[in-house]
């Protein structure tokens, strides 16, 4: 019987709350980065496109763990002191911002050209056309890959445990050190992640069905 797991469940759930908090912050900021970067990449000038190209290239080729360590070791030397929560939120948002950029770029590209023409035929142009015709449709198309990326964000926050943020994974580590029951505890930790991520996917599917009724 997994008695150790049950005894430590309240502690693990407190860790899960920190995971959820960090993941929510990162979903918001990475989405903002993604939307701005996707718009700039699709319609921006040479300088904006170049900057975003370099950003995407660097992030796509580097492991998240390396970036997490980098911010932990580099910022103090640069004289900036941030706690693990802030540092983690910055790195995870920047990392998944690149994935979100791809999600929104693909969505913008798959809005049919006819929709632009229709908007122009009605006399719309520039920001007006974008905000009323293109972006709302793109957001609907972005739904499923967006949810996938959110699941990746939740899983990605587990890496912030290595720089000392007491979220779900680090809480699991600490409980294991005290109880010496790694199988039960990490099994339980995996199960809590599963519940979070799986309900996220189910919620995403329900939202998708709901949105497609509106069409």
């Amino acid at each position: 019987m997994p008695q150790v797991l049950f005894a430590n469940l309240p502690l693990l759930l407190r860790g899960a709350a920190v995971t959820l908090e960090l993941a929510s912050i990162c979903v918001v900021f990475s989405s903002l980065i993604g939307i701005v970067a996707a718009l700039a990449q699709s319609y921006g000038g040479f300088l904006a496109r170049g900057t975003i190209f370099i950003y995407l290239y660097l992030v796509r080729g580097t492991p998240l763990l390396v970036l997490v360590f980098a911010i932990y070791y580099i910022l103090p030397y640069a004289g900036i002191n941030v706690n693990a929560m802030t540092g983690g939120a910055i790195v995870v948002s920047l990392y998944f911002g690149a994935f979100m950029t791809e999600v929104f770029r693909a969505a913008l590209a798959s809005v049919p050209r006819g929709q632009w023409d229709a908007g122009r035929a009605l006399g719309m142009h520039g920001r007006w056309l974008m905000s009323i015709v293109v972006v709302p449709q793109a957001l609907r198309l972005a739904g499923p890959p967006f949810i996938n990326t959110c699941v990746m964000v939740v899983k990605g926050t587990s890496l912030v445990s290595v720089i000392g943020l007491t979220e779900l994974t680090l809480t699991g580590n600490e409980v294991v050190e005290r109880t010496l029951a790694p199988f039960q505890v990490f099994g339980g930790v995996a199960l809590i992640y599963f519940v979070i991520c799986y309900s996220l996917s189910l919620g995403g599917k329900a939202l998708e069905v709901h949105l497609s009724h509106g069409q």
Partner: protein
Amino acid sequence: MTFDPEMMARALPILLGGLVVTLELSALAILLALSWGVVLVFGRLSRFRPLRLICGGYLQLVRNTPVLVQMYLFYFGFALGGLRLSGFVAGLLALVLQNGGYMSEIYRAGIENVGSRQREAGLALGMRPLEAFRIVIFPQAVRLVLPPMANQFIAIVKDTALVSTIAVADMTFRARLLVERTAASYEVFADLALMYIAVTATIAALMSVVEWRLKALS
């Protein structure tokens, strides 16, 4: 603190020793995940319902839990049960179990996008089901799966960095030791990031060559 290019050059040989471990682990993980994905996709497309359900459930399970936690489970969890896995084996196991699931999804999408009409056309020409798969479906599906497969290979290489947390002396592990000993954090992490980017860019380039050659063949 200033940036010292000489330090970057001095750190390089030490990190290169870890590159061997990273490459070895990546290559094994990619090969085994490719094969495990084949096994899983047969289960997913099987006519036997329980097998389909088991494979589908497995996929949800590995997809919705972090690889890092899986590594801890295999490394620390199995050891106490008497099955002592080295960090390398535990890391490899977690990478293969998770990415095999992703691979099977890539295969499935490729096969389903070729479409059942192509299969029916093959059957109408008198091919047996396995022949229709080999001659009609497979060559078309290969071209569809290459781009997502390249992305997955890159994700695997990046995820190998996680084994540094279970005492495997890969590039990331050595970089951390070096930073703690020398305090040259800018230089060492610049080296490390550049090396990962070099590996992943090489994989991306190789995969586009394969894709291009296949296109030229057809």
